[in-house]
């Protein structure tokens, strides 16, 4: 093992009868879980099932109210992450734990005694990072400032940190939720290397296909209860879903499409990205009332900037946007919202919620001036509360009550609150970016149903997603975006996954390269 610190190698960690309660919720209700070196033990469960809570207890961030943790048969009590680290346990959190104003090397050095005592030894740390990164295929540059790294790179830094701290058991809490499909493939290569080297991994994900390809064993939690463990050899997708959700999922059936009137007309739109280069290069699309137009593409091909330009948080460099024949190219965000546009942003945690506000306050971020909920300068709290309560039920948001600060909800439940807010309005145009990312399968199903409902009620929906299955089951038409351009636009019946996959990679269906990179 090429870690910076040699620790006793633990080969079996057991959690027995673990109990944890928060005000109003029993997050873990007598849960058994164990992990051996050389295996991937996956943890499945809906949003708020207690996965993160269970793992935070294994990492010493939370104290169990009951139950015990055994390391190779010996009882251990973790008072803080420091104890878990010295026992050889590492964790990569659902929300990264990096100091953005520091370099990669500084972040890695943080948890470790220096080889020079009181003095920093960043050169030594950097060398070791380079070694680790070569050994496991984790591409990172020790001198880069963390705030300039992509999420994929930040995650590699987190893995290096865990390895550097000498972890033999590594917990990965939804590591793939923020990655592009390509980055997921790279990550899996790294994870397989780690397992081959004898590390034990706990893997949390909402994507069943990831869990089935990677795992040795799979355990399922539901509402804080342990539902059972299955070996990889006898995994049955439907059974896992039943254990997780408690029911079968409905197949979404394609419905007939009769394109309505044109709602949104985009003509030759050019948009610059954060780095000042053009990332949307002459996009022309028409969005009709009562249709879902899917935009397929690997993240980073201009979809985010396109969505931002349409909703009005990014100014296009040229081109026009017409909403029902009114030119809104330069209209303010507020005016667009009042004109009936709505958006589910990609960075929901950052752009969609105010963390210290309660669940109810977050539901009413926009609509507090709606006459239904306000009379003059006064708010009609009874009505607001009833409305919020209904949404929380419909979207199955797990929260003790409406006054809970939203930061206390599980990651996926925060997302659901934002979805509930945006989908409950009656927009004429809805732009949805990656609406089901990080959301459990039960809720994904519900969100998809809501999107279809919006469409049936005549909303024009633009659905940006990397998930081809999702696009195929929802969209009436699908466009592929690559390097800022629309590579093709198809009716759903006239195309297939393979064709789209090629176009997403910038290849024509015979595998020939179509365009060079970037706008000219």
């Amino acid at each position, binding site marked *: 093992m090429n870690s910076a610190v040699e620790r006793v190698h633990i080969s079996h960690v057991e959690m027995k009868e673990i109990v944890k309660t928060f005000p109003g919720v029993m997050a873990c209700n007598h849960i058994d879980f164990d992990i051996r070196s050389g295996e991937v033990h996956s943890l499945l469960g809906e949003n708020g099932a207690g996965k993160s809570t269970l793992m935070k207890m294994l990492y010493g961030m939370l104290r169990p109210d009951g139950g015990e943790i055994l390391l190779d048969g010996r009882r251990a009590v973790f008072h*803080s*992450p*420091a104890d878990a680290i010295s026992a050889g346990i590492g964790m990569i959190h659902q929300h990264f734990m990096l100091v*953005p104003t*520091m370099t990669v090397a500084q*972040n890695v050095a943080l948890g470790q005694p*220096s080889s020079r005592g*009181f003095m920093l030894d960043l050169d030594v740390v950097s060398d070791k990072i380079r070694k680790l990164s070569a050994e496991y295929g984790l591409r990172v540059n020790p001198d880069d400032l963390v705030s300039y790294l992509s999420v994929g790179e930040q995650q590699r830094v987190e893995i290096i940190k865990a390895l550097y701290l000498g972890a033999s058991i590594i917990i990965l809490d939804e590591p793939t939720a923020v990655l592009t499909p390509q980055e997921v493939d790279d990550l899996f290569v790294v994870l397989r290397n780690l397992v081959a080297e004898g590390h034990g991994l706990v893997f949390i994900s909402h994507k069943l296909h990831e869990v089935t390809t990677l795992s040795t064993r799979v355990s399922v939690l539901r509402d804080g209860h342990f539902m059972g463990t299955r070996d990889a050899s006898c995994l049955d997708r439907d059974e896992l879903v039943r254990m997780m959700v408690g029911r079968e999922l409905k197949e979404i059936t394609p419905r007939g499409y009769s394109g309505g009137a044109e709602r949104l007309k985009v003509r030759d739109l050019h948009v610059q990205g954060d780095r000042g280069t053009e990332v949307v290069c002459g996009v022309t699309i028409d969005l009709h009332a009562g249709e879902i137009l899917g935009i397929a593409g690997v993240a980073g091909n201009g979809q985010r900037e396109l969505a931002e330009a349409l909703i009005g948080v990014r100014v296009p460099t040229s081109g026009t946007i017409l909403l029902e024949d009114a030119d809104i190219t330069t209209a303010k965000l507020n005016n667009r919202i009042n004109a009936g546009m709505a958006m589910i942003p990609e960075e929901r945690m950052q752009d969609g919620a105010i963390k210290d506000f309660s669940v109810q306050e977050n539901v009413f971020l926009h609509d507090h001036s709606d006459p239904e909920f306000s009379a003059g300068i006064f708010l009609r709290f009874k009505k607001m509360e009833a409305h919020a309560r209904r949404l929380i039920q419909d979207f199955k948001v797990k929260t003790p009550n409406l006054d809970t600060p939203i*930061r206390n*909800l599980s990651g996926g439940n925060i997302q659901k609150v934002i979805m509930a807010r945006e989908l409950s309005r009656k927009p004429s145009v809805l732009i949805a970016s990656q609406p089901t990312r990080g959301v459990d399968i039960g809720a994904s199903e519900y969100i998809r149903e809501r999107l279809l409902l919006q469409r049936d009620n005549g909303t024009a929906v633009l659905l940006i997603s990397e998930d081809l299955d999702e696009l195929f089951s929802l969209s009436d038409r699908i466009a592929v975006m690559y390097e800022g351009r629309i590579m093709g636009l198809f009716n759903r019946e006239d195309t297939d996954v393979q064709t789209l996959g090629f176009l997403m990679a910038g290849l024509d269906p015979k595998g020939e390269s179509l365009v060079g990179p970037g706008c000219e």
Partner: protein
Amino acid sequence: MRDIFSFNVLAGVLQTMLSLATPFLFAAVGETFSQLSGVVNLGVDGIMLLSAFFAFYTVLLTGNIWLGLLVAIIVGLLMGLLMSVVSVTFKAQQGISGIGLQILGLGLSSLLFKVLVGTVRTVSGFRRMRIPLLADIPFLGPILFNNTVLVYAAFLLVPVSWFILERTTLGLKIKAVGQNPSAADSVGISVNGIRYLSVCIGSALAGVAGASISISISNLFQDNITAGQGFIAVALVYFGGWSPIGVMGGALLFSFATSAQIWLQVLGVDIPASLAVMIPYILTIVVLTVSVNRGKQPAALNKQFFRGEN
């Protein structure tokens, strides 16, 4: 008017500036440690007052200036401990607990002074220490190298602090705790431990700042002798962009303005005294408004840390 711009006057202005800068340097560099770890300690002025009194009183009783300095440091540490218990362990609002500390220091020092001393008395504090050879350099020598130990120590503190913050593991931990306490916690650093340490370093240095006023600069104690210098020190931390070097720049600018103002009055230049006294403060406000670079502010400044949140 003829003498105002002579070399002698300039030398006087500069030397006064160095000695006036001393309490600012100790207090503001100390506050930099505290704030980099995420704790705004608004009680600096109160700590300075109480330490100034105890340093003065110790010297009055024993005549031992080093003992006076030591007592000032201990008083500072105790006040720092109090601040930490209230705002780190019990997670009270930092602004409120800092103001509480200030009121405590102001009230207690006045009370003790009235009860134990009563009238204005002077002590013989730190003397100027001439550094041989260096002090013989023409013009600059006597200004820079003929000062009290505390002046030398204050200026030495700047590079030492810079070194600790930029080159040691402790400095890295302090900054990590102030930028992202959850991240620091997740790699096993004790967030509260680092905050206690940083606040106590800051408060001990505020104690030295207090001593530098009562047993090095003025050699006496009176009610509210700091006249708000502790608050200026807090402002200097923002001015200096949370770096000891920046803080030194601010301390020099402010004490230069004060020193120039004093010398103008000494020389009998005809400006209203009350206006002159205001100049340094107005300068601080103006410079603060134009210069503060919030980008450098520790992201977790003034925020309590709770483990295990999303």
